[in-house]
């Protein structure tokens, strides 16, 4: 398990996603209302890039004809077949037990703090004063 610096916090706006390649993996990084989440990029169904999917809320209902939108910005719809995945867990909404993508632990740290730990910044230089997104793989 290693920790990788994968992005600057301010390069990914709220509601946006980004593909990062780290440790030989394709990871879809999401900014959900200021929190960062990382899941495997490849949809387990037919292999589409989840980082390209629409970020949506969860449509729910208590009875036919009643609509409720909750958890705004916390799901991603696969860009092809529209299967919804929970960005926080990687589980698909329709079949959480069997259809899921790997979810990675993500944290945010100041560049200054990074100098102390065993981090791997593969793609860009780290400056002391900025915030960075770190994923554990």
């Amino acid at each position, binding site marked *: 398990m290693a920790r990788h610096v994968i992005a600057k916090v301010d390069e990914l706006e709220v509601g946006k996603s980004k593909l990062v390649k780290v440790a030989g993996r394709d990871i879809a990084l999401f900014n959900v209302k200021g929190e960062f989440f990382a899941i495997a990029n490849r949809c387990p*169904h*037919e*292999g589409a890039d989840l980082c*390209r999917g*629409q970020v949506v809320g969860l449509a729910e209902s208590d009875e036919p004809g009643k609509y409720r939108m909750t958890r705004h910005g916390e799901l991603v*719809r696969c860009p*092809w*077949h529209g299967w919804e995945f929970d960005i926080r867990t990687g589980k698909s909404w329709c079949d959480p037990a069997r259809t899921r993508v790997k979810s990675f632990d993500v944290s945010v740290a100041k560049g200054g703090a990074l100098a102390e730990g065993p981090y791997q910044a593969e793609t860009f230089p780290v400056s002391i004063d900025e915030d960075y997104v770190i994923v554990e793989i």
Partner: protein
Amino acid sequence: MTETQTLERPVEAKTKFNLIDCDIHPSMKTPAEMHPYLSQRWRDHLATYGGHTRQGLSETLSHPRMVPEVSRVDSWPPAGGPPGSDLPFLREQHLDGLGIDIGVLVPLRFNASGQRHPDFAAAIATAINDWQVGKFLEPEPRLRGSIVATQEDPEKAVAEINRRSSDKRFVQILLPPRSIEPLGKRRHWPIFEAAVSHGLPISLHVGGVGGHQATGAGWPSYYIEEHHSQVQTMQSVIASLIFEGVFEHFPGLKISFVEGGFSWLPAFGWRMDKAWAAMRDEVPHVKRLPSEYLKKNVWFTTQPMEEPNPAKNLTDTLNWIGTDRLMFSTDYPHWDFDDPRYAFKVPLSAAEKTAIFAGNAVNFYGLN
């Protein structure tokens, strides 16, 4: 329950192609792309009246889809325009990206057969065909065209088919399954005659605006129902072709059903067989079991792939239909796209792969 059978069908495997995509949707950056191919009279008509089809909404399909332009979110060209409208990007993402040797264009825009003004319908059909040549077939040799023909006006349809038949880049005649009357009706037979005489297969891609309710049960409320209704529509087209005696009269006619699924075919054939056995005195012109025609005259494209749970159940379906009947398609750039690498969740033999991904289409279109 018995064990799943292994696939055991003779398949002709020889082809120089590895991957043929039978369903690619080209589109326009703007409707003005049509202008060079329309006379001033029809440009004016288009500008003034727009399309006038047999449905309530003029600019959109009856049921809004769940994603813009019915398309993969990742298929929007970086250079702008809707998915399928930018040839360089279509090449890069699709033809090169997947290694497609031959891609068959299925243009759906303007719905020529669904236009109520018969002369406008014919002008649109001709323009769409010219547009395919100008925008796609001239610059990209891997692409093939579909002859858009006005099903509701067989005379004009035949004229258009005749006009295109010498251009071998057009590999099929394209008709919509949703029509005013079922396809097998005798008024459509001149189209079959033209198809057979030019050695052109006919392809039915889901859709069309025939003016009837989208299901035999009436108009559904939701897209999930309208999407599924394409299956029932294809069923009624097949029943019509068989029970009207089309395949008896035109034994060489080849018809493909595109994007309507295929796993329903076995049970539908069994149902037709049983009903025909009871009532064949009503249709004495039908000489064989209906399911026999299914093995001889009709083909199916694979997308949207059938995905049973467990996946292995698909093997039964493939055995019942015959892997010589199936032709791979992606439906690019539409949302329910299938990727050739991952679409089949059951193992296929090498010969079956060759057949489904290329060989059957070579036979169907006569490509070699």
